[in-house]
């Protein structure tokens, strides 16, 4: 039992009360779906159609998340920096990226930033006489890459706030002890402060990863064939909306549950000796 007042709880607390019944409920649901998929041609059709988009969904998430955390880390260090220029640049980015919907950011990156960037590269390529750069076209930048860039931009701001919160929650004595041993600012950060920060923010990071996985479905607006796009295309041609969307939702649910379990496992590993 956790929770600040769990010791005041007077309801059922035996073995039955503590069992994770929701796992059983989900397992039942999964069995039902597996059975339907195996026995009904429509369901197995849809299942394999959606499965064909799974690689894209996973790849977009797996590419965007580490990059977003890296961007968030750089930004968080800016946010806590005594250097006024860095601090203000970081705050400007966080406030802007947090305040614009992810979908809108995807459109902006895909249809404004990338074409402008390509234009700039062409101009620079022509200036230095590089034919391959000067001949670059916007269509050379895949929609998948644009989506990943947009998700990194949007989630980098969240990760920055998460990391800043984690860093500033550490006791001052940790940084002092590290610096008093002669560690430089950078060494203290990487050997002492960040390892503790990541342990502390693990639950939030897990949440953000799950959230990013779900938001990866937005790639479908650019026609990228992830699991959402595959399900939509299937439904649009066969009018099997109920079946397609049910299975699609279950795909996401299965993925997010797996992630949640993974994060729980990590948390469990670190919880015992956390500060």
């Amino acid at each position, binding site marked *: 039992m956790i929770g600040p007042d769990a010791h005041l709880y007077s309801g059922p607390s035996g073995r039955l009360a503590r069992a994770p019944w929701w796992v059983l409920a989900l397992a039942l649901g999964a069995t039902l779906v597996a059975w339907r998929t195996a026995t009904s041609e429509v369901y197995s059709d849809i299942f394999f159609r959606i499965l064909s988009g799974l690689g894209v969904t996973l790849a977009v998430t797996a590419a965007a998340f580490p990059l977003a955390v890296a961007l968030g880390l750089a930004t968080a260090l800016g946010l806590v920096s005594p250097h006024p220029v860095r601090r203000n640049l970081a705050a400007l980015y966080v406030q802007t990226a947090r305040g614009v919907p992810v979908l809108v950011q995807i459109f902006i990156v895909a249809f404004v930033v990338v074409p402008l960037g390509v234009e700039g590269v062409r101009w620079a390529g022509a200036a230095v006489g590089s034919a391959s750069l000067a001949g670059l076209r916007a269509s050379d930048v895949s929609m998948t890459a644009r989506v990943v860039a947009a998700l990194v931009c949007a989630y980098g701001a969240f990760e920055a706030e998460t990391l800043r919160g984690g860093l500033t929650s550490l006791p001052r*004595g940790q940084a002092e002890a590290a*610096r008093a*041993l*002669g*560690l*430089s600012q950078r060494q203290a950060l990487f050997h002492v402060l960040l390892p*503790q920060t990541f342990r502390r923010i693990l639950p939030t990071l897990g949440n953000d990863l799950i959230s990013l996985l779900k938001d990866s479905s937005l790639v479908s607006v650019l026609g990228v064939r992830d699991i959402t796009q595959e399900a939509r295309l299937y439904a649009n041609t066969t009018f099997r909306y109920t079946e397609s969307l049910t299975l699609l939702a279950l795909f996401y649910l299965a993925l997010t549950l797996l992630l949640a379990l993974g994060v729980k496992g990590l948390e469990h590993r670190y919880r015992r*000796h*956390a500060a």
Partner: protein
Amino acid sequence: MQPEAEKPPILEARGLVKRFGAVTAVDGISIEIRASRVTAILGPSGSGKSTLLRCLNFMEVPDSGEVLFGGKPVRARDRELDALRARVGMVFQQFNLFPHLLVWENVALAPRVVRGLTGASARSLAQNLLCRVGLADKADAHPTQLSGGQQQRAAIARALAMEPAALLFDEPTSALDPELKDEVLEVMRTLAREGTTMAVVTHEVAFARAVAHEVVFMDAGRVVEKGPPSQVIDAPCNERTRRFFVR
């Protein structure tokens, strides 16, 4: 060999001033930390003892005055300060062990990262030092599994691992109950006997009397009286010092 008095002190503060807003915590203090000697800094709470000590390794950057290390003034530049801190160990009131590392890893971290020791030699160094502070059997424990006294002894081992020219103790026993204090003071007594250069901010008058070569008594950001403990603690000339030690 040069006579004692002619060697420059390991650490020296000259005209140190540190203000926090309107409060002047350290008000123009000059002290010397001499080699192989124990300097105890005593005084009432809020007298600026800890701030003075923290200025010596630039945990606080003084507003004016200078700190000399081995006779040379220390400039407040990142690289120079890192080098100073690598040579001057500090032990904190709250121990400040790194909770994400095992006890031996706490000790081995700085030698590995700062001094560039290999993992294996840093580990054996850590084992030796933990043995010296009586924690050989706790090397593979997590800091949270140790008692306060054990944590502070591990923190002393961690500071010793950098082979410091001087060790600064900032109220090392103030967070400990009386029983645990003794095991930490015993380690410090041994270090003093072995000739470790130490500056100790403390409320342990008995320890200062028995171990210190010099006692610095502070009040309101100034040094009121300094000298051997037999003089400052047992026969103070200053009225304020007398009131403090008559208890």
